[in-house]
């Protein structure tokens, strides 16, 4: 099976700083590829390369077998990259359906087709397990998890083949984190979207991930499928293995 998105030897430099070096990984549709790493590991730079904010200095990005080059987020979006950033790009005082269609409104003649936009919003949210009784209510009335779902279903509706989720659980409470994981599972069950799930929470990665890639200081530290990873393995990779052992030794003294 061809990977939906594949990276081959991607590097990114900022002056003399090596932000990413020789990154290769792939994501398949119907799978969650968990991208793990501590702060400063290069996760954000990698997302920005994927979503057209940065242009990689080396290597190539391949979507469904074809090499692509993005010079703007708009191009990446047109090629099927849907990025859901941590801040979600939502308008707190605007209604659910207006947020869903902001920048890509549906017109009927000269005016907005509000009924159709509401109907589609409700349908698309329901597909991910959230019933929005009134799509005209302000988004401020939704929970953090529901907002995340809105941003995800918006990305999918507007043609995302690759869904990049930037730390979707990190700013949420325990219960809402699970709600988001459930949403991610719903997206996976569609079988037509490759999900790249960026996180530093090993528990969440283990719950939902099918493949794992670990970044450390701009390089890939390890990668593998579900069977290659056990909890202990994951945890020690997250903490940086040797460093954790060192700390353990220090604390014992």
């Amino acid at each position, binding site marked *: 099976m061809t990977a939906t998105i594949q990276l081959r030897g991607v590097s990114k430099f900022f002056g003399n700083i090596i932000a990413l070096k020789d990154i290769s990984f792939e994501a398949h549709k119907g799978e969650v590829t968990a991208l793990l790493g501590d702060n400063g590991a290069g996760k954000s730079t990698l997302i920005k390369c994927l979503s057209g904010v940065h242009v990689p200095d080396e290597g190539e990005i391949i979507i469904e077998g074809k090499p692509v080059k993005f010079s703007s*987020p*708009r191009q990446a979006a047109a090629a099927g990259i849907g990025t859901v*950033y941590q*801040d*979600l*790009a*939502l*308008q*707190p*005082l*605007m209604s659910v359906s*207006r947020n869903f269609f*902001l*920048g*890509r*409104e549906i*017109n009927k003649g*000269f*005016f*907005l087709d*509000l009924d159709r936009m509401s109907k589609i919003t*409700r*349908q698309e949210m*329901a597909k991910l*397990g*959230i*019933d*929005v*009784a*009134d799509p*005209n*209510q*302000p988004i*401020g*009335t*939704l929970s953090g998890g*529901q907002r995340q779902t809105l941003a995800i279903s918006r990305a999918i509706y507007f043609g995302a083949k690759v869904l990049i989720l930037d730390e979707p659980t990190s700013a949420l409470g325990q219960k809402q984190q699970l709600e988001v994981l459930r949403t991610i599972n719903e997206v996976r069950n569609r079988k037509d979207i490759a999900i790249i799930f960026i996180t530093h929470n090993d528990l969440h990665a283990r719950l939902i991930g099918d493949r794992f890639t670990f970044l450390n200081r701009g390089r890939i530290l390890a990668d593998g499928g579900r069977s290659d990873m056990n909890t202990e393995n994951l945890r020690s990779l997250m903490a940086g293995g040797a460093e954790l052992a060192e700390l353990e030794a220090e604390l014992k003294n």
Partner: protein
Amino acid sequence: MEDERLRKVSSLQSFISRPELGSVFGLAIIVVTFMTLTSISGTFSAMWTNPIGIQAWVELAAFVGILAIGASLLMIAGEFDLSMGANIALAGHSFALLLTFGVPVVPAILITFIELAILGFIMGTIVVRTGLPSFIVTLGFWFASRGFAVFLSQTLVNQSRLSVKPYLKPPAGGGEDPTLIDNIFAFDKAFGLPFDAEVYYFVILVIITAFMLHRTRYGNWIYAAGGDAQAARAVGVPVNRVKISLFMISTCLACLLGVLTVMTSGASDPKAGDFRELHAIAAAVIGGCALMGGYGSVIGAVLGALIFAIASRGINFVPFIDNNLFRVMLGMMVLGAALLNQFLRNRVLRG
């Protein structure tokens, strides 16, 4: 769409979320208050049934209301235009000067509108390119516009108040009749309509802008530009272009009032529109616009303008209350409205 696995999202009583809710109550209170006060002082019919009495507050509401349309649109997009009142004088002087130099009425009006649109473009561009607060940028133009208007007319024709009566009268020997043109822009007298032309322009503009704001893509973008500009840009909303266009709408509304004032009064006045920008902003705030942007409505600004005008004119019909108290009352009203609207807005956000 019945599915037990779906989690329900509570629906909100929609009326609570309307920005103009506060100003509906405000208007009701003001009308009842002044009906009571005028009844006590025996001037009820003079203010509420006499055509001249009604004209007094309706025309003021329209004048302030036209500016308040621009003020509310800008405020929803998170910006201000303090130069509105001064631009009324600038437009009036430009129009009168062009007539003085022999330009016919219609081209003079068009040129004036183009000038003011360019001014709006310049102000908007400075705001979005430099990132300076529009409060500061338009404060600069608040000084500059009026100063430049008076400077121009004094330098060029050595007068600060230009009479245009000779240019608007029909020529003696027939030929092209300028009153026809006059009729197009200040048509009330020609058709024997009860109110000044401002009132009809106001009604038409309110209908157009209210539809534009709530039912078009551009309106959606205005809210988004003032709500969270970064988030709006992320989904492809041209925030800068939206803001610049709103500054142009604001200067063109001032231009409309400037030209109409000259046509109705027959002269340009360097003090035309003095303080009107503050009245318009007060109307927008009373009408529920959030000072930080992202929230508000044109209808609210209309109600705000009506509240302002009824209170402003009504005080003259109530002899036992000192006129100066009006300013005190207006100030308290702006504060009270801002507080009430903030409270209502927080209800919307919390759900």
